[in-house]
């Protein structure tokens, strides 16, 4: 007998929607500015950097890995692209590509250490977190880069849909999500990402070397961090050497809230988008309510632990 209940996705995938709903109801009833197209557009602009980092992070977590260095790599990317343009006079498009190239290179370094020397992702990316942060500070001299060519801020500019202005960057984020969603769901190489997260030995035995899949996932994640670098520059209008500090954990929070299992092999990429929006809505709503930012950090922390608990319990529940 196929009931409505069978058709519902498991609770771990419903979580982010429920959280989003609750947050919207609370903020909608306590502040009158919350429910407006303008505010939602602002929330999306606020989450676009975290959202795009979370795409890379989701891919890595799907393989049962973790990337603690994502925010720092993103910051390095934005410094490289802005400084190449400002100091070396590299044309903007080329400078952007250089920035993305550097973040992809750091993804490659993560991937090589994990697949060739078989180091645990947690330790590798914790090390790279520090390395990327230090290089960012050294290269920028801890100075914000302010002379940014207009091509780098274009994604932060907006166009109007009706009364609401929408940033090009948020459109890019959504397009990237849809693209990755299609890849993970409809292609063999996308399914192999899940297979590696599920059972790397099984994947090897059917002729797919799990190391290759992992390496590509880390490089690809680096490319997404690079795109996030550009979005960060476009949003703030500067190259900020201290960027990426909140994004680092917010991206992991978004992925976990989005229902992707930290044990690998389970999850839906679009959940991470919802997760990122939940984090954004929380920050936005709490700010509108006049709650100090320390409490926002506190609540995000509690949320991550709740989400991981749901993940763990639903696995034990025999699913």
């Amino acid at each position: 007998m196929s009931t409505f209940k069978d058709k519902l996705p498991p609770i771990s995938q419903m979580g982010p929607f429920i959280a989003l709903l609750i947050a919207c109801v609370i903020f909608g009833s306590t502040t009158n500015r919350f429910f407006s197209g303008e505010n939602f557009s602002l929330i999306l602009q606020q989450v676009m950097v975290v959202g795009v980092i979370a795409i890379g992070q989701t891919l890595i977590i799907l393989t049962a890995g973790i990337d603690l260095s994502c925010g720092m790599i993103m910051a390095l990317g934005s410094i490289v692209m802005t400084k190449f343009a400002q100091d070396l006079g590299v044309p903007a498009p080329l400078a952007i590509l250089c920035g993305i190239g550097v973040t992809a290179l750091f993804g490659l370094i993560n991937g090589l250490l994990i697949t060739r020397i078989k180091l645990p992702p947690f330790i590798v990316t914790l090390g790279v977190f520090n390395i990327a942060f230090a290089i960012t500070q050294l290269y920028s001299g801890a100075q914000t880069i302010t002379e940014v060519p207009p091509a780098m801020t274009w994604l932060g500019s907006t166009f109007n849909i009706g009364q609401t202005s929408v940033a090009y960057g948020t459109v890019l984020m959504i397009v990237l999500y849809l693209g990755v969603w299609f890849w993970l769901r409809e292609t063999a190489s996308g399914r192999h990402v899940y297979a590696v997260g599920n059972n790397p030995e099984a994947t090897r035995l059917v002729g797919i070397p799990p190391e290759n899949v992992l390496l590509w996932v880390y490089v690809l994640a680096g490319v997404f961090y690079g795109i996030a670098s550009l979005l960060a520059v476009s949003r703030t209008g500067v190259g900020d050497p201290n960027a990426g500090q909140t994004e680092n954990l917010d991206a992991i929070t978004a992925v976990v809230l989005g229902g992707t299992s930290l044990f690998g092999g389970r999850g839906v990429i679009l959940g991470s988008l919802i997760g990122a929006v939940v984090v954004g809505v929380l920050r936005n709503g709490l700010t509108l309510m006049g709650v100090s930012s320390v409490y926002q950090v506190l609540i995000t922390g509690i949320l991550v632990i709740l989400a991981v608990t749901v993940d763990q319990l639903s696995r034990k529940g025999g699913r």
Partner: protein
Amino acid sequence: MATQPLVMQAKGLVKRYGQVTALDGADFELRAGEILAVIGDNGAGKSSLIKCLSGATIPDEGQIILDGQIIHFKGPIDARRVGIETVYQDLAVAPAMTITENLFLGRELRREGFLGNTLRMLDKKKMLEQAIQRMNDLKVGIRSMTQAVETLSGGQRQCVAVARAAAFAEHVVILDEPTAALGVKEGNMVLELIRRVRDKGLPVVLISHNMPHVFEIADRIHVARLGKRGAVLNPKKISMSDTVAVMTGALKPEDLPPEMLA
């Protein structure tokens, strides 16, 4: 049975691991349409033999012959490519993925035209149809091919793994302890399936510690002993206790009456 042609053959396989000689000139013969059980004490060279046949290890010396052709494996993929499918003991499945996805993992079917060639899109419908058809051929009673493998019982999972091997093997199916860790009913379910695989015409190599299971379905029994082939026995003529005696060396094969050998 003795008149059936040889499908797979190994001659004088030697495999050393440092000081230890796991295989010391082992021979092996698999005939068309049979279930050949491989038994042996721990350290008798049973698993080294199977690893050589499935491409998981490369023998130091000796030949493997498939359908009259000498073959060299560099890895399990080479063995698969020539039509030898192996089901490993530790259930090589991806638990959160569907039965269909597991059946086609690593050999997915793509759509035709632009969607398949350019967008690399999978043909999920075709894979589902083929999965249903293949499972029906082998009478594996599973309700839905779109359910995750982790929702299945241990026996059903093992059936999926065996069916996957049978569906894609062209020459040989190798099963490593397929009924270990299963209850009586589930074990029988898997034995039934193995019989159907043979009846479909695929020879099966069955590695098992479970003597009642071996005697229930094997056509011949290959006894690995001291890194060699100790004997090949006929389960219809020899008793289980004599088989164990041959396995442990208490009985010498040359002392057995000839009808007990196969």
